[in-house]
């Protein structure tokens, strides 16, 4: 007898011997943990053998265990392949958990306050081991999740799986799609950089167009007329609390419906109007343990491995400059999954295209299973709905393209060109002007005009001609005045253009060629144009690059360049005349500048 008031392990040892007692103890624990499978059962399962005990212990975890009671104990062989599910539902669920885990880790270093948030991002990147990897994974996972959920919806449409009895499953799925979009969108703001502030400002301003309540909704969302401390806190709480809570609720409902109705079979596998998903013949059963379990464990490893590889070598979450409500960056767009609304907005009325149209579209989707009540799921019988599906995909793609900044947004050519050359790193791209290595930024003024001279002309002769020309017609002085206005030091002002040092600075040469190439592409808007790059020393480790565009002013009406019969642009003339008595066109100049520090390493 033991001294303890209940039978203990020691009693077992006494009774059966040490070895046997230990084995039985382990066996017992394993069976409790797996809710029904002992070591021998597991061994058999993972060796692919049939279960030696009856009743089949592999079904017990589904009946007795909490976690597996949510999963079906067997699947129909017809739905376990790539087709018809493409694993998109599984992947969506994967990303829900993946995002939760990486998100919680990121929360440890994040404070939702405009004063600190951006600094926190820098801390995550500069002072948290694996911080960058975590952020990249969370961000990439979010983008994937939106894409996967949307594709999951399209797949369901195409295979007709929304049909009776799965109408409500479809509806909850649509809710999950909307929640996913908003989850991703609300997370966009949190880094509090220029990218996030302006993408969200654009996104949130769409809500403003709603009649009557628009302004209130907008105010509720942003906490103030402009995004600020309150807005950030609200988006943060939406992102980490409200939306995830909703997501988990509807995720539960959605999956419960999936299990209760069974995974819909490929359309051709069942008779028209029948739903045989729950009636799986014995020879078609693929048991969760061990087959689906090992599949899912393998996919878990594979997906995470792929994301890790992507985040190490191919993707880094963008982080631009600190958010600044005063500075609107050129070419701001909403996040890609809202681009279709932004594109639609360019079609006209803000209310109709920004609010009514998306609402109608989503409403139509929600009602889809109740509108399309034809019994057949066969592709051949659903030509109309499949056409609508491909139309939907095409229209969304086209609208998204229209949402891009380059579509139908009027920016003057010179601004566009200089921006193209100098934009700050975003989405793994950077203006080529920033990629000139520090030692190739040789102080001097360089003109694209040099590149237009014939090859057989010596560079020095070409330059002499250019310098003589621009100093005679006052264009050089105009440039110097512009530089002065832009606070270039008096001792730093260039005296004349220098030859581009192609041998010592090949990248500089390439950038100048690119600059010239862009300028040439706009003969209508920028006639008789030349561009210049003026490089000056600012501090020992800091250079200043001034980009200048000088051209003859053209007549522009309603955003369009006016041309004469020959198709040449009509110039605007000043009241002065040259030596020959011809009027002189008004010369316009544009400049922008950037500073580049030796350690900034845009060129790596």
């Amino acid at each position, binding site marked *: 007898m033991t001294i303890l008031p209940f039978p203990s392990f020691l009693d077992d040892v006494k009774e059966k011997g040490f070895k046997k007692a230990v084995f039985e103890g382990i066996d017992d624990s394993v069976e409790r943990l797996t809710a029904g499978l002992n070591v021998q059962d597991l061994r058999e399962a993972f060796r692919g053998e049939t279960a030696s005990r009856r009743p089949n212990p592999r079904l017990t975890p589904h009946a007795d265990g909490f976690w597996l009671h949510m999963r079906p104990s067997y699947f129909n062989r017809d739905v376990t392949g790539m087709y018809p599910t493409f694993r998109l539902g599984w992947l969506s669920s994967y990303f829900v958990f993946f995002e939760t885990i990486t998100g919680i880790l990121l929360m440890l270093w994040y404070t939702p306050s405009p004063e600190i948030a951006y600094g926190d991002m820098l801390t995550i990147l500069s002072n948290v081991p694996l911080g960058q990897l975590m952020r990249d994974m969370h961000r990439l996972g979010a983008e994937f999740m939106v894409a996967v959920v949307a594709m999951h919806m399209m797949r369901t449409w195409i295979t007709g799986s929304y049909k009776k009895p799965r109408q409500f499953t479809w509806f909850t799925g649509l809710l999950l799609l909307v929640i996913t979009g908003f989850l991703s969108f609300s997370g966009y703001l949190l880094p509090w950089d220029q990218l996030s502030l302006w993408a969200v400002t654009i996104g949130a301003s769409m809500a403003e167009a709603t009649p009557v309540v628009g302004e209130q909704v907008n105010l509720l969302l942003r906490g103030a007329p402009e995004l600020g401390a309150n807005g950030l806190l609200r988006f943060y709480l939406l992102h980490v609390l409200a939306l995830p809570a909703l997501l988990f609720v509807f995720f539960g409902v959605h999956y419960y419906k999936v299990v209760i109705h069974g995974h819909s079979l490929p359309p051709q596998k069942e008779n028209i109007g029948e739903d045989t998903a729950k009636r799986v013949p014995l020879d078609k059963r693929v048991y969760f343990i061990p087959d689906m379990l090992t599949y899912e464990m393998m996919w878990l490893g*594979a997906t*995470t491995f792929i994301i890790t590889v992507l985040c190490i070598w191919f993707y880094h979450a963008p982080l631009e400059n600190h958010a600044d409500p005063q500075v609107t960056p050129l070419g701001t767009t909403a996040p890609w999954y809202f681009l279709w609304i932004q594109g639609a907005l360019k079609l006209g009325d803000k209310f109709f295209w920004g609010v009514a149209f998306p609402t109608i579209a989503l409403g139509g989707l929600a009602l889809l299973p109740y509108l399309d009540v034809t019994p057949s799921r066969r592709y051949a019988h659903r030509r109309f709905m499949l056409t609508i599906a491909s139309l939907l995909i095409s229209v969304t793609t086209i609208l998204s393209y229209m949402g891009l900044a380059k579509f139908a947004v009027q920016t003057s050519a010179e601004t566009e060109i200089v921006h193209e050359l100098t934009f700050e790193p975003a989405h793994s791209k950077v203006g080529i002007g920033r990629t000139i290595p520090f030692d190739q930024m040789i102080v001097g003024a360089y003109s694209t005009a040099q590149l237009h001279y014939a090859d057989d002309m010596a560079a020095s002769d070409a330059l002499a001609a250019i310098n003589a020309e621009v100093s005679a017609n006052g264009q050089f002085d105009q440039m110097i005045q512009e530089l002065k206005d832009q606070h270039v*030091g008096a001792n730093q002002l260039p005296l004349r253009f220098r030859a581009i040092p192609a041998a010592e600075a090949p990248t500089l040469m390439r950038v100048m060629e690119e600059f010239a190439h862009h300028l040439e592409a706009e003969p209508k808007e920028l006639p008789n144009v030349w561009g210049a790059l003026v490089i000056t020393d600012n*501090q020992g480790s800091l250079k200043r690059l001034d980009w200048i565009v000088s051209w003859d002013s053209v007549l522009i009406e309603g955003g369009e360049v006016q041309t004469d019969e020959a198709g040449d642009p009509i110039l605007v003339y000043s009241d002065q005349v040259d030596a020959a008595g011809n009027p002189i066109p008004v010369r316009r100049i544009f400049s922008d500048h950037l500073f580049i520090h030796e350690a900034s390493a845009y060129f790596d």
Partner: protein
Amino acid sequence: MNLLFIRTIEGRILAGITMFVGMMILVGWVAINEEARMQAFVQQHTGRSIERGAELFASLCSECHGEEGYGAGDRAPGLNNPHLFGYDPVGLQTAAVTNANRALVRLNKSVDGLLAELTDSEEPPSEERQNEIVAAIADLEAQIEEQNMAIAGTVAERIAILESLDTAVNNGLFPLWDTVVDIEQTGDNEIEVFFNTNGTRLAQVGWAGDLQGYIVTTLIHGRPGSARVYPNSTGMAAWSQTAGGPLRQDQIEDLAAYILNWDKGAGWTTEDFIAVAQYGKPLADGSLPSEPPPPPAGDNVEGILQRWQAEEVIGSAVSGELLYDQEFGCTDCHRDGASAPDTIGTAARIRDERLTLPQFADYTLEQYLVESITRPGDYVVDGYSSGLMPVNFGARMTDQQLADIVAFLLTQ
């Protein structure tokens, strides 16, 4: 795609384990390199912070502190300035002299010891020893001579450097010039004495913290006193949003990073001192800003009007218009009658409406205008809020400027 559907269980288990292990190896590999990556990130980020600071400096600060940070004449101190960074131009020479002096003390001590031994009456050294001592003393004397020569050379070098700094001092390198002038009376080399007590800007202003703290604090809160040292300064404003200015904290830090990036450490030269252009720098035409600026008009209306009469101050409407529109920005508010009375029709309005009021019975037009500008709170026209107009225009304008503005307003 079939890869995802490995048909055997052991194949799936093997593939899964391989993927997990591969992922762990990758993450481990990343973790090992994190230290270097984070360091690189910090460097890169500092670089970009300096770039943004440069942009802010060019647009906000260069007007007064100079595009290249050398200061702009009589408006603000140079920041690209060895003095700010605590560079001592004669540090090397001072150290050399100190070391040589120490060596001298040592040598003299040795000589004294030998002499004492030589002249010891109780225990006179042997003849041989005496000769030895005499030889040793001669050797030491030669060394002392050598050291003295070295010191003289270094001192001359030092004087040359300090003299070369005269230009810089004349250019107003040290804003508190009166301190230097005081020292001049004592007959020492005033620059050297100045360096001993005011070696760095921080010591000069009695700042206990480090340079970054000094710069950041000045950026956030602005600073008083600038107007005294720099007569044409509008004062260092408070730039931080926390102090009512326009800049966020990260922008303040960017600016500080940019200013600190001027530091050349040991690389500063006396040329850098001379490049600094602060108060007293010869103007473009070569002359020095001679007289102190004329005193402000103040807010004693009677006194102003009397001085105008006594000194025959005649206002010019043309310069008055410039001052009104630009220098003092009056048109910012006085333009459409919304927040302040419209500029147009001023004279007629005063003559026909204000001066008919009992309290202005014996006022002249000039008197009314001078009072309105220098003491705006005394009377506020019905319909406008009091306290909107700054009360310090009297302190900011000279008699002449005030007279110009009044002359301009009388034409309106």
